[in-house]
């Protein structure tokens, strides 16, 4: 409790500082925004930065006059990588703090655990991370990628001449709903491309797993059995650090067996020596290394914010895809509220469809009119020695999301809400 109060006090004072008004005078004229990200536990490595970027964006919106003439007031809670706690904290945000919208969750299991709460209390959740699809909820806007905006293009790239012409695949993941579903979709997709079951190795580890010796040895063995092999990693959270360390130590080079990851970005690689990882891949809809004015402004803003707020290691902070998605989501919510003229959840949901925003990825992203997902470009990057990514392949246009994958049976005709 102490910690929560402390964080609350901190954010409150931050927002007061930003606004420059005494607390009592504006308390009634603010719009509360919930931020529901793990600040401790195995997912803190990924989610802490999302909390930071949400606070930064709120500050930015407030500096520009707020929304409907009111300032935004962030309410930060820490669900501590504990899935049932996500539901409790979500209920607290909606019922007690009466927030207008919640930005949060990383793992699909946390999203699944808060869904009933959002449905029951008719809340509004912006979910900023790529995920497995197979879900479409009226109360949720998905600003991350669906499988056809990340996983499928990445595997297609690996199979292409340019990507090395992989014929055998290791599907490696953390043991929960996102990796299992994604791998089910990928397996069906690979089958449709003529890859046999014998050429697919599926393996899972628990959350927080730290000993990847056996798995790396198994990948090596599998890769040595002939055809060109690639690894598709859906490992989530801090297990990635020991995984990539072991990969480097075992001398498994990207030129031999490339690893493409769907949950590893600039932030996760901060704790790793990336020199042995040169050339391993990640598929996202944004990379920090993308060169355009919007991205430059975004990075500069975040750096300045991190310095001002004394974020640990503020001089080396990075931006990544889910951070961009959080940023885009908050701005789109603001536009929708202004269009609807109210923060009423149903009115905002109606106004969200068709919103556009010039994103740091350099593309103008559109919220789909019917399926609550963004149209996003797909970028595939290779790890550089400095922990950044070189974009080696990208789509020309943003792609429409298919939350219901055509590679899973029974999904025909389920595309709309």
């Amino acid at each position, binding site marked *: 409790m102490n910690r929560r109060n402390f964080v609350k006090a901190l954010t409150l004072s931050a927002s007061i500082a930003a606004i420059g008004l005494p607390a009592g005078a504006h308390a009634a004229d603010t719009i509360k925004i919930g931020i529901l990200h793990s600040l401790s536990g195995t997912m803190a*490595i990924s989610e802490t930065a999302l909390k930071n970027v949400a606070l930064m964006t709120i500050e930015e919106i407030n500096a520009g006059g707020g929304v409907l003439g009111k300032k935004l007031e962030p309410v930060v809670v820490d669900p501590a990588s504990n899935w049932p706690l996500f539901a409790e904290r979500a209920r607290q945000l909606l019922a007690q703090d009466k927030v207008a919208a919640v930005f949060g969750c990383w793992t699909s299991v946390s999203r699944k655990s808060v869904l009933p709460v959002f449905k029951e209390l008719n809340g509004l959740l912006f979910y900023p991370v790529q995920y497995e699809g197979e879900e479409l909820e009226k109360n949720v806007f998905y600003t991350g990628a669906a499988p056809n905006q990340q996983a499928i293009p990445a595997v297609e790239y690996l199979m292409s001449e340019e990507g090395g012409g992989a014929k055998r695949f290791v599907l490696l993941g953390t043991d929960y709903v996102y990796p299992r579903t994604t791998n089910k979709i990928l397996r069906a997709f690979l089958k449709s491309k003529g890859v046999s079951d014998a050429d697919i190795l599926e393996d899972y580890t628990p959350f*927080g797993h*730290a000993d990847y010796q056996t798995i790396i040895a198994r990948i090596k063995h599998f890769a040595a059995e002939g055809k060109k092999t690639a690894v598709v990693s859906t490992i989530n959270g801090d297990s990635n650090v020991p995984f990539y360390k072991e990969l480097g130590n075992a*001398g498994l080079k990207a030129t031999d067996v490339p690893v493409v990851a769907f949950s590893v970005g600039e932030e996760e690689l901060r704790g790793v020596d990336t020199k042995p990882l040169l050339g391993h891949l990640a598929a996202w809809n944004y990379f920090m290394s993308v060169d355009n004015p919007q991205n430059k402004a975004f990075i500069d803003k975040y750096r300045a914010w991190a310095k001002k707020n004394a974020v640990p290691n503020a001089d080396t902070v990075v931006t990544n895809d889910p951070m961009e998605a959080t940023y885009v989501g908050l701005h789109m919510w603001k536009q929708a509220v202004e269009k609807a003229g109210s923060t009423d959840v149903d009115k905002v949901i109606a106004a969200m469809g068709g919103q556009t925003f010039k994103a740091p990825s350099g593309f103008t992203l559109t919220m789909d009119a019917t399926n609550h997902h963004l149209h996003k470009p797909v970028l595939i990057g290779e790890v550089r020695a400095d922990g950044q990514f070189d974009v080696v392949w990208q789509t020309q246009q943003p792609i429409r999301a298919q939350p219901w994958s055509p590679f899973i049976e029974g999904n025909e005709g389920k595309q709309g809400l």
Partner: protein
Amino acid sequence: MFGPTKRQWCIAAVLCVLMALAALPARAALDPALVQGLGGDFNARVAAIDALGVAGGDEAAALLDALEGGRLGTVDGRLVVIAPDGLRDATSGEALAADAGAATRITVNNRLRRAIGTARAALALSSAQPAQRLAAADTLRENASPALLPVLARALAAEQDDAVRAVLRYATAKLELASPDPALRLKAAQALGGSSDAAVKNLLAALLEKRGDGAAATWVEADAEVRAAAAASMRAIDRRIGLAQTAGTLFSGLSLGSILLLAALGLAITYGVMGVINMAHGELLMVGAYATFLVQGAFRSHLPEYLDLYVLAAIPAAFLAAALVGIAMERLVLRHLYGRPLESLLATWGLSLVLIQAARVLFGPQNLELANPSWMSGGVELAGGVVLPYNRIVILGFAAFVLVLIWLMMQKTRLGMFVRAVTQNRPMAGCVGVPTARVDTLAFAIGSGVAGLGGLALSQIANVGPAMGTGYIVDAFMVVVLGGVGQLAGAVWAALGLGIVAKFLEGWAGAVVAKILVLVFIIAFIQKRPQGIFALKGRFADS
């Protein structure tokens, strides 16, 4: 008098050029068309890189360097080198007026990087250093294309170093398996029997397959003798790979065992010998890891040139930090709870929460970044692609070192004798003048300090965060209980045994199932033998 005729001049000139070419094949000027291919589409680039490797020469090497370093680009379809002082044409070397920003940089992806690596290796075969030639030959053994066969043959003929020759012979043999000459193929198939490379095995296996269906099927390899040689070589390779893999699994089992041991050794003293159920043991590991982090930080800011040695300096720091926390715990809390296991369990559990929160407040909730020193990165390769990482080898040795230290302390020092005496019969020890209270504190401090050393070892392979200890407390108790409460030898056998069993199960059933199976195994074992692998005999055991 007539001077040489025009025609004679021409012949002389051609001869000179030919001689120059023969003497220095590497110096031949590069074909501009070939170089321009680097600026073309993807396939043209791969072809151009391959051709550069075959052509050889400093110019080719420089171009490959520039390409890999991201210093090649195109301006209006013209290939340019992007230098700090401006753009230069890649073929002629002339400086261009255009601004450096005008060039589109050529991005290198894995496919290109592999081609560059192969081409580079082909160039490095003529290096003066045997080590460089060996590395080059190794790369070519994996990736050489048939176009490189003449380059390899030339290098093999000129090579003096035996190690390099052996690798080159494999590389050539691999390519010669596709030769039209059955005698060459036979020789290649026989030579490859000495390899321990799974990729070679697959090449050989492909020869033993049949093409077509039913009666019309023909062997991929027409010659029966070659097939027999290939089959024999395959068996030899299989045997070697099998051995290497078993050795690899055994090693990872030992490595996991050594980590379990380091995590449990401190507990074997505090719980096993002193009988205190210390739920905060995991947090003592965490204290050790955080002390390591602080030492790393101090080295980074004050002695950056000795950063690689921070791990050594962290050994006393981790021990002392955890021992001090241990002393504080013993003096302030546990002292008052001896002989009341349930209360001490609850009290230490509370302490563990206090320590976790303290770490969160002081260092933040995020995991800390601890870099492996360079001498602990990488690994040594056994046959068949099995790599033993240096960090795990070092930790294995470190566990043995700590174990020997504790054994010496317990068996050879006065303090150790006191500790054994107090644990065996406290009132009697007190009667003969052993300061039992001080011995308790010291023993607990040593157990805690050893936990700190465990934390130091864990920091090199696992994540360091406030809650890292909670993941190891169960493992540590498992080891101590399985080994038998009351002495150290049981903990050693239990830790190594559990590690090896877990790793073999993991290879067979996957990480998730292996974890369950290990727990089921321990439950079953404790049912059969509640006293653990080893049980103390005598009065203490009965009490």
